[in-house]
């Protein structure tokens, strides 16, 4: 079997890889997949560029474009987490107290407030900018504070932040803890957030293995889509998928999944280049890029296209 090293973040959306492993989908393609956990996407870039790992579960971010500009050959090859309607796993959260007291009724009320975000140059910031713009605010009309997702719950609790674009399962935990509410859901549909990345060597020197990996990946993605039809963890085979998630992430509370919103993942692996282009504009305007860049610099859809040809389009499972 061909060895493939995959960098993951041990988040909920990484379940596609675990499904592929557990259900023998990778093995069936003759792949021996090893999953390696990283504590953040950016830490994966160097090993991916240096060929220490072949595949990465990364994020669409300014870093990708800068990496490309430095000659670090990494390509976005498929969707790994996006927000089609009903799948907004990254909603705008607002501190409950502010909503209850009526201080914040619309996004426009956030003017001058403290907003948490996970880091500079992240797609979530572009989303925030998008939401603010819709409410007539500029990106700089709120105060930005960088703070990781799990810490955001703590920050909501102490009132250190007023709003944030957060992610699951932190969102559901914050809601269940009664410290924040989902304030805007589906405010920026179809944003490309998490992506599947291939290292340059993997693409150039092991094309065949890379293609087989894509085939298996898309198969897994379809299982996930079956289980999360309609934006809820109650589709076909949802219970097994939930078990896998709990086992691999260490989440202990099955109740969470009743209200948790799953991430979208295109059942054909398609990358939403349109939202990426819009986000790139945001990165450029805010000075995150060292050099001007184009979306096509970092995207290679040839593998997903070939897989689609081989497997045929996704047909939603019957319940």
């Amino acid at each position, binding site marked *: 079997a061909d060895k493939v090293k995959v960098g993951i973040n*041990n988040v909920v959306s990484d379940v596609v890889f675990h499904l592929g492993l557990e259900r023998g989908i990778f093995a069936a393609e003759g792949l021996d997949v090893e999953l390696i*956990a990283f504590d953040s996407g950016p830490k994966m*870039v*160097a*090993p991916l560029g240096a060929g220490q790992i072949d595949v990465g579960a990364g994020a669409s971010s300014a870093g990708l474009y800068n990496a490309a500009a430095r000659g670090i050959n990494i390509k976005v090859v498929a969707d790994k987490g996006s927000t089609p309607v009903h799948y907004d796993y990254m909603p705008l959260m607002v501190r409950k107290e502010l909503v209850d007291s009526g201080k914040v009724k619309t996004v426009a009320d956030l003017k001058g407030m403290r907003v948490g975000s996970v880091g500079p140059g992240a797609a979530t910031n572009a989303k925030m900018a998008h939401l603010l713009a819709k409410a007539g605010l500029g990106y700089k009309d709120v105060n930005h504070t960088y703070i990781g997702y799990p810490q955001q719950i703590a920050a909501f609790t102490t009132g250190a932040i007023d709003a944030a674009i957060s992610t699951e399962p932190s969102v559901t935990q914050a809601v269940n803890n009664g410290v924040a509410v989902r304030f805007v859901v589906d405010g920026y549909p179809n944003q490309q957030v998490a992506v599947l990345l291939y290292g340059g060597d993997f693409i150039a020197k092991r094309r065949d293995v890379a293609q087989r990996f894509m085939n298996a990946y898309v198969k897994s993605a379809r299982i996930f889509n079956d289980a999360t039809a309609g934006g809820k963890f109650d589709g076909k085979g949802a219970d097994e998928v939930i078990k896998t998630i709990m086992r691999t992430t*260490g989440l202990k509370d099955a109740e969470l999944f009743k209200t948790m919103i799953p991430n979208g993942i295109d059942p054909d692996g398609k990358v939403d280049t349109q939202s990426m282009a819009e986000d790139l504009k945001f990165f450029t305007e805010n000075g995150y890029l060292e050099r001007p860049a184009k979306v096509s610099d970092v995207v290679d859809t040839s593998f997903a296209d070939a897989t689609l040809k081989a497997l045929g389009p996704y047909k939603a499972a019957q319940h």
Partner: protein
Amino acid sequence: MARKSSLIGERFIGLLTPLLLLGLWEAAARMGLIDARFFPPPSSIVHTFGALVASGELWTNLVASLRRLFLGMLLGGVPALFLGLAMGISKPLRAAIDPLISATYPIPKSAILPLVLLIFGLGEMSKVVMVALGAFYPILINTVMGVANIDKIYLDVGHNYRASRWQVFRTIALPGALPSIMAGVKLAMGMGLILIAISEMVAASDGIGYMIWNAWQVLTVDTMYVGLLVIALLGFVFSVILDEIERMLIPWKAKA
């Protein structure tokens, strides 16, 4: 006899203080003085601890971390010891290397973790190297200081008896600096534990650090505290062991 029983007495006082603090915490958590969602009462942590022990999960992680810790301590500590002794004895060597040490020491290890991964790969080696980096500096700095502080008369005796460089190392610099070196080893052990935790957050699938990080990600607060508790216990146990080793290595102080 007297010494023994006072030793036991000291150990006893030493256990009392932490227990007292834990008791306070428990009471505060129960009475709602602190936010039990983030600072759960120790009893609930102990409960989770039991569950993790029962499942064998804790043990696996512990063994993985300990292995990395020991290898890293060796890899960082031994060169630090020898380099430190050499720098303590030789002024020119010290002048040449000191600035390099003080410039590289404060470079945040967490920031260069990606570079370490790049150089040493994603496997065990990079984690061991991280621990080694952490252990290296305190042992080196304390060894240099310890040697530099040895009363000059002892070095004079060594030179008068034509001790070779290596003999001066072994018979004067090392034993003379030993108390200071042991303080350095204690600091290094703590640093090692900190760095093992940091480096296991990347490219690891086991270890106490992995466990803590994972628990933060999904906010299973109790598990996280178990991880912190285990590290604290390790720190305590190691310090008791190191104290014992110190007592054995430095008999001329103990018997006074």
